[in-house]
């Protein structure tokens, strides 16, 4: 009995006191401790039941049962630990995700704002351009009109030129070369007539009906 207790105390103390126990995996420790407790409880039971020998058997049995209980506990702890690990991982993932998401969304917002700015600028450009376009179209139309008018004028002038050229050609054909002689003759005849009129003393015998209108 004392021996068992001593052993147990030593084990417990050692485990408790020595951080080195921590290095042994907690699972192993749990199971070991469980076994220890079981052994003690078993021993107690054995002692209670069977004296000194019983305690040893009881302890052995107890250790086995304790080990089983320890195992159970270890399993449960394991489960919890796994769950915690899982949750922690999830939490970390989600945190990470959210962090990324926030940054991404911020960027998206920026992008949207930027795009809207672009859109506004483009619209302004378009509006201005429309004005320019209108001005150009008007200029183009006025030029076209000038060209059409010019064409009409040109046609008129060309026709007029044709007519005048034809007339001039005709003129050249039918007009005689300078004949100053005829000029002199006409002047002489007119002068003689005038003189004769004074001599005739203005007495005329006119046998005529209405004169023609010269056109």
């Amino acid at each position: 009995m004392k021996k068992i207790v001593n052993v147990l105390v030593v084990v417990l103390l050692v485990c408790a006191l020595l951080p080195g126990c921590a290095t042994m995996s907690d699972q192993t420790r749990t199971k070991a401790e469980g076994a220890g407790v079981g052994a003690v409880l078993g021993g107690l039971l054995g002692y209670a039941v069977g004296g000194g020998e019983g305690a040893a058997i009881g302890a052995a049995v107890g250790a086995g049962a304790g080990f089983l209980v320890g195992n159970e506990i270890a399993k449960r702890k394991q489960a919890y630990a796994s769950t915690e690990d899982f949750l922690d991982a999830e939490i970390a993932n989600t945190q990470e995700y959210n962090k990324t998401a926030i940054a991404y969304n911020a960027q998206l917002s920026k992008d949207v704002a930027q795009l809207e700015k672009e859109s506004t600028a483009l619209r302004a450009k378009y509006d201005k351009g429309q004005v320019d376009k209108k001005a150009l179209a008007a200029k183009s139309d006025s030029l076209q009109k000038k060209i059409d008018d010019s064409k009409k004028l040109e046609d008129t002038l060309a026709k007029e030129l044709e007519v005048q050229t034809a007339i001039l050609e005709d003129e050249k054909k039918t007009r005689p070369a300078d004949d100053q002689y005829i000029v002199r003759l006409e002047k002489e005849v007119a002068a003689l007539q005038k003189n004769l009129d004074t001599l005739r003393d203005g007495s005329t015998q006119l046998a005529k009906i209405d004169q023609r209108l010269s056109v």
Partner: protein
Amino acid sequence: MRTARVLAVLLVALASAQCLHAAPLEAIRDILRRHLPHPPDEAALAALSEDDLQGRLRDIDPYARVFSGGEYRVPLGSSGSWIGIGAGLAMRAGGPVLHVYRGGGAERAGLPDRSRLLEIDGVSVREQDAETIASRLRGEAGSTVRLRVALPGGGEKPFTVRREAFSPLDVELVPPGSQRVVRIRDFAGGLTRPAMRATLDFLDRTTAADRSAPLIIDLRDAPGGDLYEAFDLAGLFLPAGTLLGTIRGRDGYALEIRSPGGDKYSMPLTLLVGPETASSAEIFAGILRQHDRVRLVGQTTYGKCSSQTDARLSDGSVLRYTNREVLFPRGDTCTGQGLTPDLAVGDDELDMLSRLVKRAQSLYE
């Protein structure tokens, strides 16, 4: 009393005003009374007044007229020169007609002589009087005018004519020279006979035909002219000394006119005549006809063988009045009845020279 005096003064003023500005009616009456070939009716003379003077004058003498000092032109010389299409405008019953003169813009544009005018620059001439049409035809030298005419042979045609300075020939030679057609439009004192001689000489020199080939003288557009010139022209075709006619006036005035000496032309003659052949032209034609020197082709002439003279009045105006009657050698006159042609033609043919020429030529075959 004062009112009467005022009235009297006013009346005197009015009367003297009348005397100063009115045509000298008494002088006119006096001239007419003394010089008309036949004495006028006194009542008609008395009826002469400022009010419609021209009309009342014409009642007495159909060819009498008073010209104001400003509008009177001495009837001397040829038709002068002007800027235009080179034509004469005549108003006929059917409408305005253009007599196209040789060598003018109208002739050069191809406008046929005696075309009936329909439109000027696209606007009709219907209902317009002579002065309006003439002013529409006139324009600046170098300008053109579009005319639409009815052609003598039928059909209508447009012509573009250029206006230019123009003076007509005193005697026209109608081409081709070979058909020997000359045209007289006016008997211009001292000018028409020498022009005729020049033209006939020109014909002789430039055409193959000889001097004895028949000559056609177109008198369809000859309203008359200087009486003595008509006699002189007739004398060109009749031997010297031939009695051409007698000029008769008031108080037994009778002047015999004989053919003068000088060069003569003896070729066969045909005259183209019509209702616008008048006065001196009729006298010329009648003289030659009475001597069997010509044949007349066309239509009956106008019927005026009287002659007028001009007298200047005290206020500067001029009275033209009939003072002479012309008698042919046989003693008859054309006044009132005109000369009837040897070969009569219809109205359409009268305007077609080529047809008339053919008819004239047929007379000598």
